[in-house]
């Protein structure tokens, strides 16, 4: 279980996160949502140790900040919003970097499987920089999947931290990626995702954390967080939540923005 408390960080004098407490369970997709500038990515970057600030973080009883980099890389993988590749590596080489980071013994089959999972098998030996933006995003997802290939390992859950994993993708690949994350969580792994698409989040997340102004304003099951008043206030526009059987929720933005 991922537990964080007292997370605070400021950029200059402006507080970006103030005293945030956060938890995520293995076996679940925990989605962080909120308007632009609400602190979603900042929270994720603090949870992954990319951003230094105040607060305590524990990952299944260990403190990530004090773990050896190699040991930490075997327990959790992190997918940032965008990753530029500096040299003409092939997709296979990029995904293998992830796999080798997470595994002391190299099993080449995993690299092929991880690439197949995101539907890029025929490009596996092509140049990474020749792929489209959406394909590169899926390529990096294959890389972090290959790093924490086993959702459970030695009786402990593996973790995926992903920042807007579907931002660059069309609707078919959005579903593909969410299905992939779903399967990882169902097999015991933990997923923490920053998400923009509320409908997709409602369909796939087990828990939602709604942020606004550097604070968590609501957390719980999607049905608990996705209510008209909570969303309308956080996103500063009139939003109307509709439900549909069997478990769908969708959201219709209304024309007039709130002041």
């Amino acid at each position, binding site marked *: 279980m991922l537990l964080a408390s007292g997370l605070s960080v400021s950029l200059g004098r402006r507080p970006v996160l103030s005293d945030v407490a956060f938890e995520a369970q293995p076996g679940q997709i925990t989605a962080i949502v909120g308007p632009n500038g609400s602190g979603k990515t900042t929270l994720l970057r603090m949870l992954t140790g990319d951003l230094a600030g105040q607060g305590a973080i524990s990952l299944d009883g260990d403190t990530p900040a004090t773990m050896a980099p190699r040991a930490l*890389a075997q327990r959790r993988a992190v997918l940032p919003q965008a990753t530029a590749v*500096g*040299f003409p*590596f092939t997709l296979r080489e990029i995904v293998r*970097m992830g796999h080798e980071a997470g595994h002391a013994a190299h099993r080449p089959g995993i690299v092929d499987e991880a690439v197949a999972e995101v*539907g890029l098998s025929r490009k596996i*030996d092509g*140049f990474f*920089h020749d792929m489209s933006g959406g394909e590169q995003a899926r390529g990096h997802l294959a890389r972090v999947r290959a790093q924490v290939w086993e959702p459970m390992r030695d009786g402990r859950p593996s973790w995926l931290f992903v920042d807007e994993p579907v931002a660059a993708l069309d609707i078919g690949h959005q579903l*593909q990626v969410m299905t992939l994350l779903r399967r990882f969580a169902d097999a015991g792994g933990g997923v923490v995702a920053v998400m923009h698409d509320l409908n997709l989040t409602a369909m796939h997340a087990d828990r939602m954390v709604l942020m606004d102004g550097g604070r968590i304003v609501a957390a719980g099951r999607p049905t608990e967080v996705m209510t008209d008043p909570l969303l309308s206030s956080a996103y500063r526009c009139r939003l109307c939540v509709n439900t549909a059987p069997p478990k769908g929720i969708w959201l219709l933005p209304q024309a007039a923005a709130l002041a």
Partner: protein
Amino acid sequence: MATAAIAAAPATAVTAPRLKVGAVTAGLALILLTTAAASLSLGASGLLPWELFSRDLSPAERAILLDIRLPRLLLGALVGASLAVSGALMQGLFRNPLADPGLVGVGAGAGLGAVVAIVLGGLMPAAIHAATGMYLVPLFAFFGGWATTLILYRVASLRGQTSIATMLLAGIVLGALAGAATGVLVYLADDNQLRDLTFWGLGSLAGANWTKLAAAAPILIAGLALSPLLARGLNAMALGEGVARHLGVPVEGVKRGAILIVAAMTGASVAVSGGIGFVGIVVPHILRLAIGPDHRSLLPTAALFGAALLIAADTVSRLVVSPAELPIGIIMALIGAPVFLWILLARRATMEI
């Protein structure tokens, strides 16, 4: 399921054009041996290649071979390997194929260190001389190169991202500054020191002897031997420092290691052979095209290729205006500058520099 539907519409597979690492390594080893044999046997003295084996050599010819050509060959091989590997390390560190110790002022910084040692060496306390011995010039060249690399990285990198424009501009400024300081020292130098400086500044292996080789070889060999330890880290750094950290790479250690090794190898190379440019650009670039950018194969092949290239260039430099010599720096610039322009043009088409 969505996955199946999307995967079911494949066209032909895409494959990056790559040569086999093993074949390239073997080929380079063969080329290195051939150039080494040619370098040993060709020269102004008129000793021909086959005479090495076909007849007994006179004492003078033996001296030419063992005391002039052999140390020069070994020094050329080590310096060439070191310059090529330094280039590859530096490019990995800056995530850009245009970073080269010679271009971004590290060579000039190392040169300044070497000139300080040559010109002001006599003023230094005897204790320093006693402690450093023949390593005084390489040591100062190392400190010069190290300081320049540190400043360069501080200026050009912000939060793990490197601005290439900033890096190149900062390199030009640092190079100019080191060059100016070097100029001041040249004014202060006496006649003997001036002769040393002139020979050295042209970039040449002409002064090679066993003493110089003994001074530089341990540093260069140590750098070459240690650099493969950085290969995995540099591969991950190609995705940015943040991602490299998440891939379990001790990023600060890799950066510090790369900077130290580059400074040591550039310093020692500059100290014994002056500023020889472009080896560090040309060799890694061609190898990346041939076998890909994986540093685990790039670093060893760059060592072989760099050694062969410098030996070949040195042999040419001894032959074209025989019995005089063309400084090898000129030959490398003639080969290297067009290649650099070619990289610029190719990259301009595909990505931002």
